[in-house]
């Protein structure tokens, strides 16, 4: 019984703020013999800590028939293992004053645990149990299948972006598995087999496929000792197979249209861009801000503020181990056609390619990036997620601390160059989501 597991002591704690900023030297790393890598950053600002487990498995590791499995394991990992039965992961964690969540992308699945500092060992026990001995119970699978189908329906019903982005991805990628929606195709969700699940887990949940980040009111030695005790005995299952498919260059504009009960058209433009970690990453990310960050940005100013061609606009640059997409999304204003909005967006992009940006405007988005960086690094969760993201996508967490400098080094010529290189008609996929009545 749970109450027997918990020895409750009461104590008082005070909040104290850490005044010094962290540096790369403050992050301690070690790798267990089974290949599981740890990054630890002590932060004693509040009496809590977190553990972020980055697994290098996402939609890019899937094939037709098993789409959505990466995301499904984000659910199944909470449905019982050898020691802690169904739902006990959540229950034990909640009983110890902690909580958790997880997210799945095209590239990674990340499990996030937040807990009061004295529960660190409990967290190690919970995590090691499910990594080593996850139970894939068929009754649980069926129940969770229903939850995921509901999640998919809710997302598509309430987000027009979801509807159009699924279609655009599937059109922009003809060969690479980035074509798959992270949540999976409905028919696949309904038909995954027990064997599919067991194979997938054995293939991708091997300790050498994980990077674990711990940040908070714990010590490096505590983490090292518990990692050796609980994680090191988990056997390595061999490295997962590499994704071999390379998307060939797109050599011509692709267009796709779909319909929904909406009031004004939504449009989505997608351009192929290189993998995260590429030398153009920082210039592209600043270009990202130049387009739609703030009311003075190119697209917001021209489409939303100066005119009402669009009611909303944003952009999104997908992270990726492989080359992914740079998205530009707009919701047309009242009486504005999709074609008109598309022309207006393309005119802004063409102007950027032709005229570039001046130092002053570039400095503006560099300031924004610096502000975003500091805000993220304010919290222990922001630190853990950023350290893990840089370690996994850039191959070195130290690059996180270099980020302000690397953004600062981008020049107006860099912006003009990457805009001209990637924002071409041949490299573009255009999606229209139109009101039903316009058909």
């Amino acid at each position, binding site marked *: 019984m749970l109450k027997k597991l918990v020895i409750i002591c009461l104590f008082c704690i005070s909040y104290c703020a850490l005044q010094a900023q962290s540096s790369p030297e403050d992050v301690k790393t070690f790798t267990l013999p089974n290949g599981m890598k740890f990054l630890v950053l002590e932060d004693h600002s509040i009496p809590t800590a977190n553990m972020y487990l980055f697994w290098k498995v996402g939609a890019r590791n899937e094939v037709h028939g098993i789409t959505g499995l990466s995301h499904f394991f984000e659910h199944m990992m909470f449905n019982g293992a050898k020691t*802690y039965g169904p739902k006990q992961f959540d229950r034990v964690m909640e009983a110890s*004053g902690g909580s958790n969540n997880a997210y799945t992308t095209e590239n990674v699945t990340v499990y996030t645990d937040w807990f009061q500092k*004295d529960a660190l060992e409990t967290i190690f026990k919970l995590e090691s149990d499910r990594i080593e001995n996850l139970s894939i119970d068929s009754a649980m699978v069926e129940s969770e299948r229903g939850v995921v189908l509901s999640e998919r329906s809710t997302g598509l019903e309430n987000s027009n972006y979801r509807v159009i982005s699924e279609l655009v991805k599937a059109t922009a990628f003809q060969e690479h598995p980035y074509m798959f929606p992270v949540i999976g195709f409905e028919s696949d969700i309904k038909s995954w087999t027990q064997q599919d699940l067991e194979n997938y887990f054995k293939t991708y949940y091997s300790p050498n496929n994980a990077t674990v980040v711990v940040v908070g009111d714990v010590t490096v030695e505590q983490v090292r000792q518990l990692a050796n005790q609980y994680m090191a*005995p988990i056997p390595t299952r061999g490295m997962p197979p590499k994704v071999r498919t390379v998307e060939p260059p797109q050599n011509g504009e692709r267009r796709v249209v779909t319909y929904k009960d909406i009031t004004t058209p939504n449009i989505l433009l997608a351009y192929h861009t290189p993998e995260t970690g590429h030398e153009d990453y920082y210039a592209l990310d600043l270009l990202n801000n130049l387009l739609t960050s703030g009311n003075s940005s190119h697209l917001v100013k021209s489409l939303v503020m100066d005119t009402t061609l669009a009611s909303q606009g944003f952009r999104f640059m997908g992270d990726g181990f492989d080359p992914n997409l740079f998205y530009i999304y707009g919701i047309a204003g009242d009486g504005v056609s999709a074609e008109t909005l598309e022309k207006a967006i393309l005119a802004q992009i063409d102007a950027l390619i032709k005229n570039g940006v001046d130092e002053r405007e570039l400095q*503006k988005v560099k300031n924004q990036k610096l502000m975003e960086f500091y805000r993220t690094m*304010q919290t222990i969760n922001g630190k853990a997620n950023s350290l893990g993201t840089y370690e996994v996508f850039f191959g070195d967490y130290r690059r996180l601390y270099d980020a302000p400098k690397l953004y600062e080094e981008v020049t107006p010529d860099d912006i003009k160059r990457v805009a001209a290189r990637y924002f071409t008609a041949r490299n573009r996929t255009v999606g229209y989501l139109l009101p039903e009545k316009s058909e």
Partner: protein
Amino acid sequence: MSIDRTIAPPFRVIERIHLPPVETITLKNGLPLHLVNSGEQPVVRLECIFEAGAWYETTPGASYFALKMLSEGTASHTSAEISEAFDRVGAFLELSHTSDRASVVVYCLSRFLPVVLPLVQELIAEATFPDKGWDDLRNITLQNHRVNWEKNAYRATGRFREQLFGSGHPYGRTQTEERITTLEKEKAIEHYRAHICNSRYRILLAGKIGEDEIRAVDTTLGQRVFPDSNSESVHLDFGAVSDSREPVLIDRPDSIQSSIRLGKRLFTRHHPDYFKMLVTNEILGGYFGSRLMKNIREEKGLTYGISSRVNTLWHEGYFMIGTDVKKEFTQQTLDEIRKEIEILQTVPVGKEELQTVKNFMAGEFAGSLNTAFDVADRQKILILEDLPADFFDRYIEQIHATSAQEVMELAQKHLALDSLSEVVVGGK
């Protein structure tokens, strides 16, 4: 080495948290400046809080538009110039509107605070409400409303609040196409003059703050002299609220899902049952391991998520259960929700479950105070709602003091099934 994974290590439950105090300074012109000075990063958040939300408006929508128009133009700068000025230094401007209050919020690097402050002062004191800005804002608001109106969840929450408070009440009013298109600019200007431009307000500065930052605030926001009169809560007739508890069903044949809302009016943080009701709510639907989640998501797989919440506003509050389910599961879900409430009312919660909830709430509270901004958010509640300084210091103590018997009694007292209003958008 073999590991006995059945024995969990001992850990200690958080019993008390001390919220860092806020320091209050009075500026030259009498405005209060509240300071939360902590954090390791060189960023600050400046918040100017006005008693200027929907509660104070005489025409529906006037407070929203009055606030949002601040950045559409001033005596010295156009809308584009204002945006450019904030963006240039990487500052983020938020014009935050609620039923109770309106706030001008800026996040910026500490070193740019002196650049940002004169702009903030200008927005507050010199907004000109230009015609083009007014037309653009109205068009954008209308478009965004139409996009949101397509979503069952948005419609359901709006209709639910209207059902509880009445469409004339500030807490029950929702945006409608008619209200957006017929609002006269003069009404927004009147609201601006009465409740923002000529009204005293509070300033909350959080982050890494030194003498320079305080001086910068005093030499800008602290200079303008205000008229003697101040904005007061006007007692308005908000119209009658229907006593009907008849379920509301908004049928949308094309929807695959239904959005369900179930709940009732409740109370503010001042109510003696407040903390214990938080525990009661948490057990029912307040966290991932709640009874509603276990039953409706985990056991039956009917939904991706279901939750309940105690929402506290300045003058009142409300309790709401919300979820999205496939249409064919709507009635089954409603039945299960009611069944769970009945169980809560009739069977004392077990020791283990109650202890889990208390531990979870304590841990979550401790983790929610990570940054100076988090602390400022808590302090803001104390200041604006006139709560005792030790209110949050006692939070965990009060949570731990809640008994199983009290949970049952509160569920009977505050969650009587015939007192709950039901709204479904989608279908049954």
